[in-house]
């Protein structure tokens, strides 16, 4: 531990569930010879930084932009003053971070887990900023053995939210502007007709079909509209997925909010409560199959996929070109298309009844993930970004 060549400062996330990820990054940077100093974004933020800062401090790191707009008393951004870059990786869509991104300086590098999110940020938030592709990775407790097929007592699990389509539809239907409602419906129809099209592309395409060409950076409500529509689509897709599987008598264990469970409740869905922190990994280790549904991801991995794989569960997922670069349907995952669930239930039944098939697929997935999608790979890619930007 005395061999660190350089230092970095990691700002602790505000959300408890992200603490394991933060710790994993710290460990990964240390493996890459960077001493990781941990600070919290509170009233002592600047004094904490002063205590650990030295000439070998090469970058700051944060998740979801915590502390990325911290300023000195003279309103200057700390990172501009220090001439030290800050890397911020985001766990959600850019519309959730518009203020943080718009206030970015040249010293902020924003990493998004979906290539489409970078295009979105450039078009609708801030064109001239440092963006980089930083997709999700998997985590597990490496000290534990991966459980066997027989040791997994849950057949299928889903952990996540089910946005209420009725609620999100009401947000744009209650505006008393018939043409606007129609505009939203046309975007939804386009998204539902194809898994390939992204939300911003559908939005632009419908605008263009109306011969309307607007200044994307002046559309103040575009983020809330995109957020509403993406929640609506995610809700519809996830409800449809549950319906298609439970109608075929497959049993699903649902981990999440009770209000979300009510949207998918039937005799084949068991409500298992809300998962926090490491309980999440325990649930993955108890399950043979984990369901993933990320209908609006266009070039990305969703954390659920690699984390499930590292914990030995078989991933059933919608897919996208980035996912397809690494994982093949039937070999490493079971993939599906939201517009065609016809074979999905049978495929799941087959794997639940075949230990050999389960082991073949999960072993392949585990190997690919270990070789490509761990925190060590992402930490290395952050250093690459900094090097390319001339910061290392």
């Amino acid at each position, binding site marked *: 531990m005395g061999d660190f060549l350089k230092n970095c400062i990691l700002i602790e996330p505000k959300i408890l569930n992200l603490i394991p990820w933060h710790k994993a990054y710290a460990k990964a940077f240390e493996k890459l010879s960077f001493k990781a100093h941990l600070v919290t974004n509170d009233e002592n933020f600047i004094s904490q930084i002063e205590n650990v800062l030295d000439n070998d401090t090469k970058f700051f790191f944060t998740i979801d932009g915590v502390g990325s707009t911290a300023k000195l008393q003279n309103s200057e951004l700390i990172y501009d003053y220090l001439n030290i870059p800050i890397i911020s990786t985001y766990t959600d869509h850019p519309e959730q971070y518009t203020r943080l991104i718009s206030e970015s300086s040249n010293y902020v590098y924003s990493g998004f887990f979906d290539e489409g999110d970078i295009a979105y940020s450039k078009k609708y938030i801030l064109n001239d900023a440092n963006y980089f592709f930083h997709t999700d990775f998997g985590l597990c407790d490496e000290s534990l053995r991966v459980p066997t097929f027989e040791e997994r007592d849950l057949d299928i699990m889903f952990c996540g939210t089910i946005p209420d389509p009725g609620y999100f539809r009401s947000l*744009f239907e209650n505006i008393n502007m018939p043409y606007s409602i129609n505009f939203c419906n046309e975007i939804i129809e386009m998204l539902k007709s194809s898994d390939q099209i992204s939300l911003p592309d559908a939005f632009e395409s419908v605008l263009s079909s109306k011969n*309307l*060409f607007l200044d994307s950076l002046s559309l103040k409500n575009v983020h809330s509209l995109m957020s509403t529509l993406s929640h609506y689509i995610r809700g519809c897709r996830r409800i449809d997925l549950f319906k298609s599987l439970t109608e075929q008598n497959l049993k699903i264990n649902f981990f999440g909010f009770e209000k979300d469970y009510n949207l998918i409740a039937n005799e084949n869905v068991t409500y298992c409560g809300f998962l926090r922190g490491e309980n999440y990994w325990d649930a993955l280790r108890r399950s043979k199959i984990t369901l993933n549904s990320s209908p609006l991801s266009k070039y990305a991995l969703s954390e659920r996929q690699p984390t499930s794989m590292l914990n030995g569960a078989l991933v059933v997922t919608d897919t996208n070109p980035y996912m397809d670069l690494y994982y093949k349907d039937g070999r490493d995952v079971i993939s599906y298309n939201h517009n065609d669930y016809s074979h999905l239930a049978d495929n799941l039944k087959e794997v639940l009844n075949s230990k050999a098939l389960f082991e073949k697929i999960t072993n392949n997935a585990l190997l690919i993930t270990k070789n490509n999608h761990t925190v060590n790979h992402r930490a290395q890619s952050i250093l690459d970004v900094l090097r390319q930007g001339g910061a290392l």
Partner: protein
Amino acid sequence: MRSCILLYSNLEKNKFSDLYLDYSKAIGSLGYHVTLLDYLATDFDNNFFKAIDESTSHKNTFVLSFDSNLVDLNVSSGNVYDIIELPIFSILTLQVDNYELYEDVKKYIRCVIDKHEAISTKKHLMPRANILFLPSAARRITAELPKIENRPIDVLFCGEIFDATNVRMAWKDNPEISVLCDNMVEILLSDENKSAFDAFYESGDPSPFQYDKMLALPCINYVNAYMQSVKTSKLLKEISGLTVYTPYDAKEYLSMIASSKIVLNTPLNLKYGITDEMACSMANGSICASETNEFTKDNQMDNLFLNYSNSNYSLLNEKIKEALISPQNLNAMSESASVFAENNLSVLQNAKKIIEASEIARLLNL
């Protein structure tokens, strides 16, 4: 309550002079309360701000003007529409000619008659502009359209004929744009499918953005006028039995069209759109003789007019002569064209498109 503040002036008489009344009626028929304000009237300022005050309680209010008039209405703290957050649409009746910049007015949505121009403008000239492509509106003079054979004028040409040499002289006198315009003409003569916008940006070396934005407009206008006058004079020489008429006002213009069997369209500078003459001749059941373009093709209009391509004007003359031998044979085309115009190109259809765009602008808080 939905409302529209429509700004107009009666000062200038031309073929568009009553257009504001047509839009007023159409927007009113769609459930909007329309406040008509003459912007040259002495009490305009009072009336305008009174109308604004009354409309602020309405969620769906927009301002409509023509030819970018009053878009630059400013008070000391900035542009009025940006301050009160009210979208202003301005219908630009001509291609490019009266195209002011006003890119800094965020609430301004310019309505242009050529989609190609809209796309080129966003791409090369004003990336932050808001543009709605609104085809020329088909206006009809009377409910009952006379049969083709009962129309007294055989072939009508509405418009002014410019001398191409004079147009060229205008840019030759301006050293800043002289070479650029000459290059643009060369490009357009070698490829008929290109627009003056395309030619302008192709003439830029290496990047079109090296040129001042303000330079683009005179270049495009001059070259468009030049190409139009060259082609028009060539066309008019080839067509026999023409009645040439320069419109005085909208009523006379539309009456002349409705009295004609065939209306000769000016050769198209528009790459994706139609001229006012074409829209109005279709609406009034006259047979339009026009070149085709991507707009007429995409809208399956090419069997609704006498079309010609590749500047083959002598062939067009033969087509016209043949058609006039038995004008009653043109009645089916006349009827289909007027139905198409009513359903797709009328002022009412355009009013719907403006209202739709205003609602979307509101939704997105443009």
